[in-house]
């Protein structure tokens, strides 16, 4: 990111230093619900990470992987909303309403994409989908799924909360939204949770649509490529308003995902 801005930028391990510093700061708690919400959203994202196969290792993706992932994905915005609301900061409450609207915005196309992938491979366990792809080549290459692949790429910035859709943590407008009241250790947990949700979104993309990977190294490489691409998008666009973002999300990606779904059903039979 710094390179795009023509500047030298911090060393690579800067986020680690930030997290370490935050842990050592004495945060201010706003009551029990505040802490509970935090833990809830962190737990949600941790569980989801367990379900996603990371290269060869897939700890718990026995059965029903996709459905669990879908269910858990909603837990994260809920957790943040719960704790943000408790913090009684007007910026936080506006941030939460934006976060939920945005989550609703990208859930619709996401559902359509996952449905398309499931019907195409006829199974809901991610591991099987990955192994199926190894036989027939990456699913994004196969004709019907290319549309849902494109739709996924379009909603990727929204899921990561990155620039064109950085509506939730808009620092300039509502001073970093729901995170406004988090200090010290809470902020550390929140940043970790944000990083995890980014990890989930990208690994879901790589697993389902880009054919997963046999060993973690290749998988990590693919994720890096996707992340850098999203960063380029982030650097080039301003921030949209909430209603503009949702209007965009519901118009183009959902349309493409829907056509993809129909295509899969027609071709599949």
């Amino acid at each position, binding site marked *: 990111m*710094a390179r795009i*801005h*023509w*500047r*030298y*930028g*911090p060393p690579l391990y*800067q986020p680690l*230093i*930030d997290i*370490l*510093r935050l842990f*050592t*700061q*004495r*945060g*201010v708690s706003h009551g029990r619900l505040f802490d509970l919400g935090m833990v809830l959203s962190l737990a949600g994202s941790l569980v989801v990470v367990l379900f996603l196969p990371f290269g060869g290792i897939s700890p718990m993706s026995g059965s029903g992987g996709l459905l669990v992932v879908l269910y858990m994905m909603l837990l994260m915005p809920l957790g943040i909303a719960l704790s943000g609301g408790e913090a009684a900061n007007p*910026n936080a409450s506006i941030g939460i309403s934006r976060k939920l609207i945005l989550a609703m915005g990208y859930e619709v196309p996401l559902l359509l994409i996952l449905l398309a992938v499931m019907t195409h491979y006829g199974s809901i366990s991610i591991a099987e989908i990955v192994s199926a792809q190894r036989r027939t080549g990456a699913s994004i290459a196969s004709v019907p799924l290319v549309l849902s692949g494109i739709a996924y790429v379009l909603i990727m910035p929204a899921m990561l909360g990155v620039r064109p859709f950085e509506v939730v943590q808009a*620092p300039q407008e509502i*001073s*970093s939204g729901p*995170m*406004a*009241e*988090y*200090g*010290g250790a809470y*902020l550390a947990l929140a940043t970790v949770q944000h990083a995890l949700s980014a990890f989930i979104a990208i690994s879901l993309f790589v697993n389902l649509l880009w054919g997963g990977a046999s060993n973690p190294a290749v998988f990590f490489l693919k994720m890096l490529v996707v992340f850098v691409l999203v960063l380029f998008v982030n650097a080039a666009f301003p921030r949209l308003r909430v209603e503009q973002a949702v209007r965009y999300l519901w118009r183009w990606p959902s349309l493409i995902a829907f056509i993809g779904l129909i295509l899969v059903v027609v071709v599949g039979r």
Partner: protein
Amino acid sequence: MDRNQLAKWFQAPTKMAHKYSLHAVYFCTGCGIIEVPPVITARWDAERFGVIPTATPRHANLFLITGYVSVKTLRAIIRTYEQMPEPKFTVGFGSCPINGGMYWDSYNTIKHLDRYIPVDGWIAGCMPRPEAIFVAVTHLWTLIDKDMADGYKRYRTNYAAYRANQERALGELEWPPLFPMERGR
């Protein structure tokens, strides 16, 4: 980072963390703010030193008070300072917070900032240059190393004196005292 730094890191990781990630709360208090944007953007880039502007005092541990402090701003500065989580450092920026600077005879500006909130470092100069800010940041590093950057501890110990001064300057303050006033002064 050369070899002996690493030894120091493992010996006191928390201190290292505080040194290399000073998130400054973005609060344009006075005329010195005109030198902060060039510092955080491409040409001088304070991010190399880990100084990033943050939106809310909750996320910050460095407070740059840039330029003169008027009476109304002092009230906002005190609230922002008290909202910041504990290990926090303040740097007075320019000659006006030190002794009133050019507005020494103005009825609406505060003359000595360290009578109201503890200040760890000063940067002299009426609008100090960006290099002076980096000198201040590196100086703050050495202070943190030698545990001399203890503004927040001073604030905690003689809070009664600070509170009394604040009330003298601002009249009645509408928020409760931060620490229990154990020694009424």
